[in-house]
């Protein structure tokens, strides 16, 4: 029989590698994520914004951050809120009522890996095919794409720190890829 207890913790629990002076990889414990799908033109969008006391960014790849949570714009009608609480979820549900909107708590779905250090960009560029140069991917950008054949969301928050969100079942695979890519920089 499958031991279900093994799924109750992050597949990368406690993993870390390297140092800030070269490349530093670290698993971040589960943060809550809430995914919202709502049309830009829908009245429900305004209600969600009122409850969260923010404006949802409109451009795909842009983000918003305050002390409580980070909002990533993943599609023209698709936002992921990292750090939202169950209370936020309840409030959004209540405010939008029967309107056409989807609110899904996807907290346990992804594992979070933080990539930082002097060679963070270089390590990611071993597999990430989209532009990471700051003029095209400035602080506060996010992008969804493929890294090591795995769907990954990259959020570039504070300058020099990349947050990778990967499905939990692919986390170990991505970690193996990152540690392999990091090897040559660790000795620098």
């Amino acid at each position: 029989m499958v031991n279900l207890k093994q799924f109750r913790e992050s597949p990368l629990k406690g993993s870390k590698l390297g140092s800030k002076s070269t490349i530093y990889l670290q698993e971040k414990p589960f943060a809550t994520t809430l995914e919202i799908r709502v049309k830009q033109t829908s009245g429900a969008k305004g209600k969600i914004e009122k409850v969260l006391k923010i404006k949802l960014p409109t451009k795909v790849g842009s983000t918003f951050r305050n002390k409580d949570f980070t909002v990533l714009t993943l599609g023209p009608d698709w936002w992921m809120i990292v750090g939202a609480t169950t209370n936020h979820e309840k409030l959004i549900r209540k405010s939008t009522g029967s309107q056409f909107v989807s609110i899904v708590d996807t907290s346990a779905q992804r594992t979070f890996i933080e990539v930082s250090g002097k060679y963070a960009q270089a390590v990611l560029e071993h597999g990430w095919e989209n532009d990471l140069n700051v003029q095209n991917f400035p602080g506060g950008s996010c992008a969804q794409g493929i890294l090591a054949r795995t769907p990954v969301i990259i959020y570039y928050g504070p300058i020099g720190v990349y947050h990778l969100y990967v499905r939990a079942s692919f986390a170990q695979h991505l970690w193996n890829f990152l540690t392999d890519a990091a090897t040559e920089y660790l000795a620098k």
Partner: protein
Amino acid sequence: MLLINCPWCGPRDETEFHYGSEAHIAYPEKPEELNDEQWAEYIFIRNNPKGWYAERWVHTASCRRWFNVWRNTINHEFGPSYKPFTKQPSRPK
């Protein structure tokens, strides 16, 4: 590798997309009135031009959105991409 311009995400690698064949094929207004031949035509028959072709792509790995784009079938050159239900840009030269 093709570089495809998603109207929402910008230029991205072909591996992030899936192909959706010819654009602007409307669903039949009264599908129940079509005979087998007409239905098969709607499902399977597509233009196969040598040159510019307006076709559909879906950005599977990122925004998950369908969009239309002009592509030249001779040299894989991409013309303008555009969102569904917006005005089609004119055929590139």
